[in-house]
């Protein structure tokens, strides 16, 4: 997909939906000229999770240096840009507002068009950067701290949601189990590391799925089962093997994600399957899917870890295809903490 006159489109992309302040300059949706991430993980670790008010304050401090670094690295000034694209939702409202307010003001003052982008649209689009030959249609599993979606990508920015979580997101379950095991925040990498030394068959945890809703997930029951094991051991003053619990929990998550993705590939006839989001950087999930897809002759794609966790380059990719479709945001663009992905996303428990 190109502009009608074949002209390059260079966008400044901004992302601030959670605890990373990020800015990137991306050309034609796939060529990353710069990708700057100011992480706040160290700040939030002391609280065992993201504190929204602190995250919002840090975004205000970081956003200008972050954008300036992205432009400097790309060697561009604002007058060489074709537009500004920004995550407008979903996410923490106070955090989103910083990126959205900055982007609107910057675009307005520089006389540039503005394109608001859905955060999950961004995660999925990270695959366009990783694999330049990738074109829709394909199947994509998005799993992160805030989202667990199984999506059929019909065209650029056009999504059919096949399944989603009924309660906790996959990454949220990682964070909570990690906390109960005394492992540091964020839980994903902590569990991944601990699990490497554990036995995934040491405990048998329930499957994180919903009967009768074939592609939906439910991670809350799985999480409770793990917490129960930990709690009962504490009550009986027994020691548990942290690596074993981590490995068994991770196995249960990977198992349901893999099973759903492969079955969806079969049902939709998709030949290409991709993953995205923070959980997509999980080693066990990548290894398992690589093996299973090779066996089934499916093309399996996953972005490198830095493109899985929150970043602005992915917003630049999603923003580019939205830009080509003619999407332009008004100056009244607001942060939407519960922005739905397309018209078919369902709401469970206000999620």
């Amino acid at each position, binding site marked *: 997909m190109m502009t009608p006159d074949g002209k390059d489109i260079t966008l400044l992309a901004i992302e601030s939906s959670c605890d990373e302040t990020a800015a990137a300059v991306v050309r034609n949706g796939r060529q990353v000229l710069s990708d700057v991430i100011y992480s706040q993980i160290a700040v939030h670790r002391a609280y065992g999770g993201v504190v929204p*008010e602190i995250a919002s304050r840090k975004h205000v401090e970081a956003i200008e240096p972050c954008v*300036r670094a992205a432009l400097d690295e790309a060697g561009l000034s604002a007058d060489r840009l074709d537009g500004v694209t920004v995550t407008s939702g979903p996410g923490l409202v*106070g955090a989103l507002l910083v990126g959205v*307010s900055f982007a*609107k003001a910057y675009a307005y003052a520089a006389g540039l068009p503005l394109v608001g982008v859905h955060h999950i649209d961004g995660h999925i689009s990270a695959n366009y950067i990783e694999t330049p030959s990738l074109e829709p249609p394909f199947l994509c599993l998005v799993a992160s701290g805030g989202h667990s979606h199984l999506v059929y990508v019909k065209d650029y920015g056009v999504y059919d949601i096949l399944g989603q979580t009924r309660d906790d997101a996959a990454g949220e379950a990682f964070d909570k189990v990690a906390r109960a095991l005394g492992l540091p925040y964020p839980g994903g990498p902590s569990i991944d590391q601990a699990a490497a030394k554990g036995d995934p068959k040491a405990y048998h945890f329930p499957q994180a799925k919903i009967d009768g809703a074939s592609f939906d997930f439910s991670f809350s029951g799985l999480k*409770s089962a793990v917490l129960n094991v930990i709690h009962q051991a504490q009550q009986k003053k027994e020691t548990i093997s942290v690596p074993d619990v981590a490995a068994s929990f991770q196995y249960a998550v990977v198992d349901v994600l893999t099973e759903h993705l492969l079955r969806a590939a079969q049902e939709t006839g998709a030949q290409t399957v991709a993953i995205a989001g923070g959980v997509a950087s999980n080693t066990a999930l990548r290894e398992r899917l690589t093996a299973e897809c090779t066996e089934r002759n499916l093309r399996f794609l996953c972005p490198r870890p830095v493109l899985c966790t929150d970043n602005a380059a992915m917003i630049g990719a999603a923003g580019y295809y939205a830009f080509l479709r003619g999407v332009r945001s008004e100056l009244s663009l*607001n942060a939407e903490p519960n922005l739905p992905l397309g018209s078919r996303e369902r709401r469970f428990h206000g999620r």
Partner: protein
Amino acid sequence: MKLLAIDTSGLVCAVAVIRDGVLLAEYRTQYKKTHSQMLMPMLDALAKAIDLEMNTLDYVAVAAGPGSFTGLRIGAATAIGLASALGIPIVPVSTLDALAWQLCGEEGVVCPLMDARRGQVYTGIYRFRRGPRVDASAPFAMETIFTPTAVSVSEVADRLNDLGEPAVFLGDGVPPAQETLSERLQVPYRFAPLWKNRQSAAALADLAARYAKEGKAVQADAFRPVYLRASQAEREAKEKKAREAAGGEESTHACPPEIELRRMLPADAAAEAARETACLGREAWSERLLAEAADRRDSVYLVAVFDGRSIGHAGIRNVCGEGEITNVCVDEAWRRQGVGERMLRELLAQGKALGIEACTLEVRQSNTAAIRLYEKLGFVCAGARPGFYEEPREDALIYDFMTEKQD
């Protein structure tokens, strides 16, 4: 010199442009739409109205705080975005200074009040003095008698009484403070009229132009809003650290997030009554009393649930605006893990919705763990009921609590 000023610190959304001491345009609204939706379209309309070329601006001025955290950030991020794209500096102006500047020339003292919630206001006290030189554009100098801070309305009144001068109030903190002011103030006072009792971007711009001349502008990346208050998480962490440093034993722990609270149902009564008997012995409520309590409209009874199983309950009853916390009960295995604290915080929050302003409870004098928790939550010991409890016979301590608005 051309300067754009933005104020989104309170209920008002305001934008103004001044050039060499002339106000070219000022737009302001006080409406329920969010500043995020309102601010940029307002700036665009204003710019169109006066054919403003953005790249002719020399400064962006912004209300730096105090104010609503979210409002301040919308103004800050917008100012930073404009300044960054235009390559111009930001002039931060205290919200309270700018409010007061509207009443430039007033006799006595000027006292802006902004609602800071939690029973407090953001305020400062200012006085205007005629300048030594004859300067038509600035006949008065503003003197800060009491620097911006967050305090209770009573404290503001006390300070004004100490000063003993007539006072003029303005700001969106005035309506909720009026009653306390009228009770406590001993000096003559009045309220600014409607057209100058809220944030004004024109006043902000004029003050900012003066600050800019004094070299108080900063680069976009150096600007920080002035919140005057740490986030709740930071405050709590600091309090916890202080308690630990004081050698106090940590009485409560972070409640595991997997524990859910829900309303008690009459069907829960049997199980909860059994817990009462196990925890409280003779003071236990019967199944019938609990079933009745779960059904009453003047009461809130909660159960804490882990993995589908109840592990504790607590309840509050509204007696003419005063809440009585009647029961707090947690399974032995789950004590000291923050379950009671979570239930109590939720009870206080839900009780407020029932119209409960203050509440009270009784506790066995020897129940130090519970007392520590009540004190942590802000309960204050108001006396004792000698010999209130039986088996063993013991005094009850009475603890009272006044609800406050939270962040």
